[in-house]
């Protein structure tokens, strides 16, 4: 039986962690993710969970504690944002390279400087090459569902990679919205118990993290990359099992009115909802528009994206971060790459949007669709690397 509730995105994640009954949570507070360990530590204090809560002195230590706990066979998780993730940087690679299935709730926030507490994706996009699986969430429901599914993906014996579940800081983390929760026992049954094939403890203890000389490092790096390739199948299997349980069917991405669309926006996290709203308005005016909402960004579903965009005339890829390549954002680079092998490919432009919490309005997305409309009408691609919602441009 689903439980009808209303929770903020942060509460939803804390409840997911509670229902999983983590073995270890190690966290250091940082806006806007602070509420996750705050609510969770209340569950610990109340004895609702049996979790060992490690109140560390920094995010570097939070991730270190999670890696160590996971290496010892525990189910370990943390939550952070922005500079908190940046301070974990060294350890993000240690987690994936050590093949420990740590999970992380990332409440997306802009990186300094100038200092800013509001939302964009510069934190997670900067970590896209760290060997973590990344799943993005449009709203509190997806943040909750993705967090529950994340442990099954991370802990799968063929994968053993850490997973970060991202949602937009404040926009969804601090907004109260309706949500359907699962019963505690349904979550407990779905996530099961983590039983590692090998760990620091147990009958056949192993070493984790010794020096890897040139005779071995490359093979390990290859295996990590291979696990990322293999993870797509496991992710889809877990999504399917979750759909059977809840009726909420998720894919690597969501195609919204894409079937007969001529123009589409590719976007992830909360703006996908606003884009669907604008898409509906334009559809009512007879415009053939759609939205492709990316959910799984690492591994990047290149073949599926290629297929989904193949029939389009023009595509705008939205980036809520800039990687300062001087040619466009990170989502754009991957999406355009996916289309390279198509015989006839859509015209593709990039919009940087919403940096540092700049509100992403209905008008902004209408502007994006009208830019696509102009490309289709004139056949002229124009500027590829664009910005929307910024003054003076």
């Amino acid at each position, binding site marked *: 039986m689903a439980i009808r509730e209303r929770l903020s995105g942060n509460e939803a994640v804390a409840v997911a962690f509670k229902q999983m009954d983590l073995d270890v949570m190690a966290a250091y507070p940082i806006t806007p993710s602070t509420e996750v360990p705050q609510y969770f530590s209340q569950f610990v204090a109340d004895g609702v969970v049996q979790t060992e809560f490690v109140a560390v002195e920094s995010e570097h230590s939070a991730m270190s504690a999670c890696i160590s706990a996971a290496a010892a066979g525990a189910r370990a998780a943390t939550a952070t944002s922005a500079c908190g993730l940046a301070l974990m940087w060294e350890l993000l690679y240690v987690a994936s390279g050590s093949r420990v299935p740590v999970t992380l709730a990332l409440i997306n926030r802009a990186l300094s400087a100038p200092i800013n507490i509001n939302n964009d994706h510069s934190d997670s996009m900067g970590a896209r090459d760290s060997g973590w699986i990344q799943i993005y969430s449009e*709203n509190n429901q997806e943040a909750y569902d993705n967090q529950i599914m994340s442990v099954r993906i991370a802990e799968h014996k063929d994968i053993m990679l850490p997973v970060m579940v991202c949602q937009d800081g404040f926009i969804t983390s601090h907004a109260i919205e*309706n949500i359907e929760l699962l019963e505690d026992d349904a979550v407990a049954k779905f996530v099961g118990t983590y039983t590692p094939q090998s760990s620091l403890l147990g009958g056949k203890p192993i070493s984790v993290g010794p020096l890897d000389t040139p005779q071995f490092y490359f093979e390990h790096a290859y295996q990590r990359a291979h696990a990322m390739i293999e993870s797509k199948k496991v992710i889809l299997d877990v999504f399917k099992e979750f759909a059977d349980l809840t009726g909420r069917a998720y894919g690597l991405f969501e195609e919204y009115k894409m079937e007969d669309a001529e123009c589409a926006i590719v976007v992830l996290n909360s703006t996908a*909802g606003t884009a669907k709203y604008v898409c509906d308005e334009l559809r009512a005016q007879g415009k053939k528009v759609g939205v492709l909402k990316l959910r799984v960004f690492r591994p990047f579903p290149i073949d599926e994206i290629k297929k989904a965009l193949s029939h389009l005339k023009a595509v705008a890829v939205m980036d809520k971060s800039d990687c300062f390549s001087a040619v466009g954002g990170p989502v754009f680079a991957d999406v355009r790459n996916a289309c390279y092998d198509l015989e006839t490919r859509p015209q593709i432009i990039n919009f940087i949007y919403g940096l540092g919490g700049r509100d992403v309005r209905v008008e902004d997305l209408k502007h994006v669709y009208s830019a696509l409309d102009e490309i289709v009408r004139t056949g002229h691609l124009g500027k590829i690397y664009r910005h929307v919602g910024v003054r003076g441009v």
Partner: protein
Amino acid sequence: MSNMVEIRWHGRGGQGAKTASLLLADAAFNTGKYVQGFPEYGPERMGAPITAFNRISDTRCLLHCNIYEPDYVVVVDPTLLTAVDVTSGLKRNGAILINSSKSPEELRHLLAGYEGAVYTIDAGKISEEELGKNFPNTPMLGAVVKVSGIIPEDRFITDMEQSMHHKFANKTSVIEGNMNALRRSMQEVKGL
């Protein structure tokens, strides 16, 4: 989503406009609605102008942006009338509700030519008389439910009573005052 109602709250940091928006979301949720309740986050100084938002609908709200063309505006602090463009984008067939001891007619000249409905409620007075302190939240909540009609009034009162008994289980003395403040605010709105 033609049935979606959008409400924008204007208050000052520390007055509880954010909490009021979350309480309204709760109340609407309890009647089976889909809700959003969220503040605009910035430098959270006591006394600085802040904005909070509600969307209330029969279907899930897809929009994740602030509200620029609200159906209703609620002003928790009347000194904001001369500091913030509170009627910006407010729909002509919507309404503004202001916490003030004055009548709607006395305040209309401060509303940048807004031609729609104006209501006032003396939330400070009700709060002081019923709760002994100036917590304008509860009376503002009652008044906005009255003015907007988004929640059936009887259902609202019953739900609020239940949730207060739950929330203040160890502090039942405050329940009566809060319930009185709610009932009075629904009766004492000026401009109906």
